[in-house]
């Protein structure tokens, strides 16, 4: 048992899993996986990473429940030099906008997607990567149109990654002035001659206040005017960077949510709007609620959301503190099998669990698989980001595409992705099933399910009988796929 685990985690059994699911308001759609609960260490690691690996489990066991959370919330203290070295293969990640814009757009956008997959698999700062994924979707920018083939790379570096566990107000301001966002939501062409409402509306509805934050159409128009003149430098060495153009800014007085925005403040008008939004209680509730949905369940308890929102407000939007509240809660500890892995999480978790090696073209193969599964990074066109609910992703196409990924990985058939499936000679079907279930799932199986895995490998031979090498070779790919494709693997 994991030292320091909250009572609710320590007490997890299949039986009270049902109870906890119901009390978390998970509803009829999900929440009762019917599976034996994972060990708390395994659960914690699966929830704070892109999927367990033996090394993570050992470290979490050593650090304890609170210690592992604390470690992952301080990513700057975690050595990630091996990943940094591997990222050297993607020089575009550190380029300034004008240099990026001189490059082929496909090269730039593919590098960012592949680097994102690489980081998710190999970073030691796993929770940071989860937060980056969260904010990438919260401040969604479609990376396959207009200037954003190039500029999303800058947004990823200077907005999302720079503030993923920082202060929400800083993150919001960085996003508002990010050329990628200015292009995506058209604020780059928002001028006093005829305001463009796109950014103003989505910033309030999606980024801050939420749908019911009290803003009206009049507020949308006023906010749009406050952001007139926030645009992108189009020429010279600073091409592709933020530019405030006072000539196109409507510097008259405005009113937003009943508060006066004085005339003559120039760019300060937009900054005042952002400050009002960042500090608004509706924003605290909206952002806290989304974080709870990401890390706990599709229907988090109002008490947990309120607690997280209270932390958000009390700390002035300190994201790390909000995460401490959520991850320290009893609800979080009792949320096993309440969230499905989305395609990106399922694919990355499989590669991590298999400890697969990526060779030439491996990241491209994974990106191709993710495109088919519907979750290639930066490829969601509307501004609301990839959905994060079980119901959105569990459909026939989604099930089939993840099953096929499992089949491909089990057969080592994905170009450039290879796992070592060497087994001891003379192993029995039962030994092989147990060995790979432990490696890939690290959680107990129902006896009937274990029996199915053994039966697949044994193919009529006695479960405990040593198997001929040819049979092991024939049956191992399917065993790996059955485990990766099983219900057990689909839960975060």
């Amino acid at each position, binding site marked *: 048992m994991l030292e320091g685990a909250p009572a609710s985690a320590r007490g997890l059994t299949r039986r009270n899993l049902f109870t906890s699911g119901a009390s978390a308001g998970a509803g009829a759609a*999900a*929440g009762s*996986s*019917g599976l034996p609960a994972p060990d708390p260490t395994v659960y914690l690691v699966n929830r704070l990473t892109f999927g367990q690996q033996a090394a993570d489990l050992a470290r979490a066991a050593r650090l304890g429940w609170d210690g592992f959370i604390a470690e992952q919330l301080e990513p700057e203290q975690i050595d990630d030099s091996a990943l940094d070295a591997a990222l050297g293969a993607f020089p575009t990640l550190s380029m300034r906008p004008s240099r990026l814009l001189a490059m082929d757009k496909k090269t730039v956008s593919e590098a960012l997607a592949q680097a994102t997959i690489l980081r998710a698999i190999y970073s030691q700062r796993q929770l940071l990567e989860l937060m980056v994924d969260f904010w990438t979707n919260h401040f969604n920018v479609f990376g396959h149109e207009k200037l954003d083939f190039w500029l999303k790379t800058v947004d990823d570096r200077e907005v999302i990654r720079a503030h993923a566990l920082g202060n929400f107000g800083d993150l919001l301001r960085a996003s508002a002035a990010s050329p990628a966002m200015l292009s995506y*939501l*058209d604020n780059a*062409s*928002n*001028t006093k*001659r*005829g*305001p*463009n*409402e*796109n950014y103003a*509306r989505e910033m309030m*509805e999606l980024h801050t206040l939420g*749908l019911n934050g009290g803003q009206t*159409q*009049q507020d*949308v*128009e006023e906010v749009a005017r406050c952001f007139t003149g926030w645009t992108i430098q189009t020429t010279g060495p600073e091409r592709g960077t933020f530019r405030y153009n006072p000539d196109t800014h409507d510097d008259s007085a405005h009113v937003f949510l009943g508060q006066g925005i004085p005339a003559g403040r120039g760019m300060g008008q937009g900054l005042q709007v952002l400050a009002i939004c960042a500090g608004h209680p509706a924003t605290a509730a909206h952002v806290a609620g989304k974080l709870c949905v990401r890390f706990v369940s599709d229907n988090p308890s109002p008490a947990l959301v309120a607690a997280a929102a209270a932390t958000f407000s009390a700390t002035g939007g300190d994201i790390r503190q909000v995460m401490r509240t959520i991850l320290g809660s009893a609800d979080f500890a009792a949320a096993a099998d309440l969230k499905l892995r989305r*395609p990106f999480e399922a694919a990355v978790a499989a590669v991590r669990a298999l400890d697969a090696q990526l060779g030439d073209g491996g990241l491209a193969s994974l990106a191709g698989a993710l495109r*088919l599964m*519907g*979750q290639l990074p930066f490829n969601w*066109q*509307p*501004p*609301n980001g990839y*959905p994060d609910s*079980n*119901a*959105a*992703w*569990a*459909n*026939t*196409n*989604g*099930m*089939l*595409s993840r*099953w*096929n990924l499992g*089949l*491909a990985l089990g*057969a080592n058939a994905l170009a450039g992705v290879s796992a070592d499936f060497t087994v001891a000679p003379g192993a029995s079907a039962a030994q092989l099933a147990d060995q790979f279930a432990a490696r890939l799932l690290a959680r107990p199986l129902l006896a*009937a*399910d274990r029996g*199915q895995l053994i*039966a*697949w490998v044994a193919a009529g031979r006695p479960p405990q009988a040593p198997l001929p090498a040819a049979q092991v070779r024939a049956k191992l790919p*399917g065993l790996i*796929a*059955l485990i990766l*494709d*099983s*219900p057990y693997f*689909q839960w975060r």
Partner: protein
Amino acid sequence: MRPFDRRSFLKALGALSLPAWFPRLAFSTAPDGPGSAQRDLLVCVFQRGAADGLNTIVPVGDSAYYANRPTIGIAEPAGGGSGGGTNPAIDLDGFFALHPALAPLKPFYDGKALAAVHATGSPDPTHSHFQAMDYMERGTPGSQTISTGWINRHLQAAAAAGDGNVSPFRAVGFGTLLQASLRGPVPATALQSIADFHLRGNAGAVQTFQASLASLYADTTWLDAQGVETFNAISALAAANPLAYLPRNGAQYPDTDFGLALRQVAQLSRAGLGLEIACLDVGGWDTHHAEGGATGQLATLLGDLAAGLAAFATDMGGQMQHVVVVTMSEFGRRVLENASGGTDHGHGNSMLVLGGGVNGGKVYGTWPGLAPDQLSSPGDLQVTTDFRTVLAEIVDRRLLNSNLAAVFPGFQAPAYLGIVQPAG
């Protein structure tokens, strides 16, 4: 207000090439005896992002249109007052005209198989994409208490009325995520590619594998149910073997996601899998910036839409007698263009209805006008026809489901517009 449910113009049909299946000529529509009516296949196309209905079915007869759209307005058809511009709109009835990129649909309009509805949309005034899409797909504007989609409720009601169709392909949503209109207790299949809809691997081994995998999804939880639906769909599709498919009548689908999806609708429909509902999405309509006029961003989107629908109708041929296609979008766009050469979120919009049972060749609805005092806040085309009025008529007359209280709870449909004939 100027009613426009009458056509002031009739084009001479002779000048246009009619589709091979031109319904009124090729098929008798004499009603059969009781019980023999056949329910239409419904193809529901959702234009995600709020399509600009004012530049789709263009009100060239409303002078305020041109005043509001100095750079992105579509020129009047030749012969109109200020007409004769390059690449003009295509006249429909003297007041409305088609965007020129919709030219492939004009023969269907002339052949009475295509109708449009204008100034239609949701009674709820939201300008949020996501809320408006939710409301439209649930069919419950203004209400967040019902989580099922309107199409799923139609399927439930039809099942309750003794419909025996339990095929996994009864309702299909194209794409990686299932459309919200299809969500609910009746299973619906999400599908990207018919050709790829199977477990990959060596055929014999995959069959054994599928059996073993199915045994891991044999419990009764929610996730098990998702698995079972998927196995059912895989098996049904394999049994029908619809792979060898060639479009008929010279139909040429555009090489786009939309074209591919429509081609697969035809394919599934022909495969005898009991397809009743197909939902398709087309994205990219949120044209705040550089929308373009007769050419440009919107024109490209409309061109894809028209080419796809024309190919589908051509391919389906005589079967279009039992198909109804309806297009919708969460709301329309602001009447006045913005300084970015685009349009912001609006309200009223246009819809298209295509099929053999359509009373086509007509633009339906009540035109509220585009003068300042005729607009809804903050400068939008009013909604004079609830989108549910259009859908209810289709559900009732073409899908043969009169339980509209179940499909659109709380909605009292006014008199139908008469867009479709009762299914014969």
